[in-house]
């Protein structure tokens, strides 16, 4: 709470599910950090109510490490991400940023990592304010990496994202797209790191 305030967030603490529900009906928040063990109305019920109202505020679930089932149900109910207790403040902020980025991108807002900026309204990336020429598939790959910035993105996740094209993409094809994107990013501080066996990670120097 204090940590988040210090890093410039405005926070409000809602101590039980009932009052949280009431407040969420009245006000708009950029993100919700939801502890599943809330008194009165439990976290999952609250989350279901929020989503049933069509409220798409990003929700980050805070859970103990031993509650896999609850976590999975949380994600199924419409949470955007989760974080285990105890956590590092830096990790919480990174997750919040990632969640917020995805939501912002969904609603058409700009998202930036280092010198790389995504303008979803134009379906275009900018590198150091210069438009980046990308094929539609390269665009999709870079979009996945940018929206999951700070996390490793597996080839399977990229394949999922590209499955909109109605054809199976081989891993070799994904490697080819990543190779092409790298060439286009070369010279900037944004790089795509290969994490062998896991996937790719978008990095920028100011991380």
């Amino acid at each position, binding site marked *: 709470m204090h940590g988040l305030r210090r890093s410039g967030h405005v926070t409000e603490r809602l101590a039980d599910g009932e009052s949280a529900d009431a407040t969420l009906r009245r006000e708009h928040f950029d993100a919700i950090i939801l502890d599943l063990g809330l008194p009165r109305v439990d976290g999952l019920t609250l989350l279901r109510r929020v989503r049933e109202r069509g409220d798409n505020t990003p929700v980050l679930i805070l859970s103990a*490490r*031993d509650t*896999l089932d609850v976590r999975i149900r949380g994600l199924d109910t419409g949470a955007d991400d989760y974080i285990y207790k*105890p956590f590092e403040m830096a990790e919480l902020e*990174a997750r919040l940023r990632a969640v917020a980025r995805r939501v912002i991108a969904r609603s058409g807002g700009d998202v930036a990592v280092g010198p790389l900026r995504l303008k979803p309204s134009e379906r275009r990336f900018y590198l150091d304010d210069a438009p980046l020429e990308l094929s539609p598939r390269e665009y999709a790959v870079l979009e996945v990496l940018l929206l999951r910035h*700070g*996390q*490793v993105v*597996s080839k399977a996740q990229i394949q999922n994202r590209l499955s909109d094209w109605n054809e199976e993409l081989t891993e070799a094809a994904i490697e080819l797209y990543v190779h092409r994107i790298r060439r286009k990013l070369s010279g900037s501080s944004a790089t795509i*790191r290969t*994490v*062998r*066996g*896991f*996937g790719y*990670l978008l*990095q920028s120097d100011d991380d």
Partner: protein
Amino acid sequence: MNAVPSLRRRLLLRLLVPLLALFGISGVCAYWLAVHYSSSIYDHWLYDSVNSLALLVSPGPRGAQADLPVAVEKVFVWDETDPTLFNVTGAQSGVLVSNADLPPIPDDAEHYVDGFFYDGVLADGKRVRVAALPLSAERAGEPVWVKVAETGTERADLVEHIFLAVLAPQLLLIAAAFFAVRRGVIDGLLPLRLLTRRLRAQGPQALQPLADAGVPEEVRPLTQALNGLLGRLNALFDTHRKFIADTAHQLRTPLTAIKLNIEEALAETELDRAHAHLLRLRGSADRATRLTTQLLSLARAESGAGLPGRFQKIDLARLAHDSGAAWVPRALAKQIELSLHHDNDPVWVLGDPLLLREAVDNLIDNAIQYHPGHGQIRLDVRATPEPTLSVEDDGPGIAPELRSVVFGRFQRGDQTDHGGTGLGLAIVSEIAAAHRGRIWLEDTSSGRGIRAVLGLPPSRDS
């Protein structure tokens, strides 16, 4: 009756039911024997009597004649309770001598030597047993029927006497058996009551094994099993006591540092100089947090043992991928490259997904924690010869003589402080045991660092 009836009632029931059945059978037999013997004795006597009476019959001038002196008749009739009745009748002369009218011989009379036996009823309604002997005309001058009869009173008395003589001791025997068993069971169970008292008297602080003295041979296996259990419990209690003491000690270290740094920070008047203390304070708080987290995982790993009901089929390669991916940013922050190597086929094992994830997390966490930075950590998942997941680093390694020690709680491979809790490998070891798998440490091919290998039994239906 209860599902588990009392031992006493069960023994008595088991003993009494067959005894009573035996008693019934022997009663029927005794009655039959009594009837058989008494009738054969009395029939024999009756036949002798009819033969004796026949001796008095001789051929006379007009057919047969019977000479029955008064003295003989008295001897003959003699018995008062069961008077002997007789009747000698010639075919022509009619009744020669008689003291009663006896029923005529029926068609189904029982043949015996030269004569017959039959049962009949007198005019006054008394039931009689009759022996009849026919005498030929050559023998007696004319055909003669000699009949002797007696009422059944004496026979019935004899049957009764034999019957009682056989059955009465049996009844006594059954009653005696009943009380003997009752007493025996109560006495036999006395040592168990004493054992119970001795067990009740024990406090949980120090569990004493039960001495063999006074324990019946049959109960020894039970007390020996109990002693084994008590021994294991004692060992467990000792481990837990030591563990709690160790835990308190381990927690006190960061807490002392926290207190010290707070005091030093408070003593500083300038914020900049207090900052250094606050940084150290954060480090100590991190350590305490980490320690409690690890303690919780250890408790979970321990309680996870013996819960194969929660096991499910898990792809070890997928697990390594999911767990490893989450650690990549933290590894990169220390300039360590984390990589995963496996064939594309799934490696199926049977296990608890949470516990296995915990084990893999701890192995990777350890590798990163004790790594000085700038290096490699590689995860390998193999299906043969058994499903294994290994975590290999190029860090400082662990000296061979310490490798068996580091699986103990609060044991670290070296004494330098890397912020490790010394619980990671203990947790992995508990989880491996819960899955009937194993964890071991071995040299790497490069000779630098260490490789930790988690081996698990394969899922059967893979």
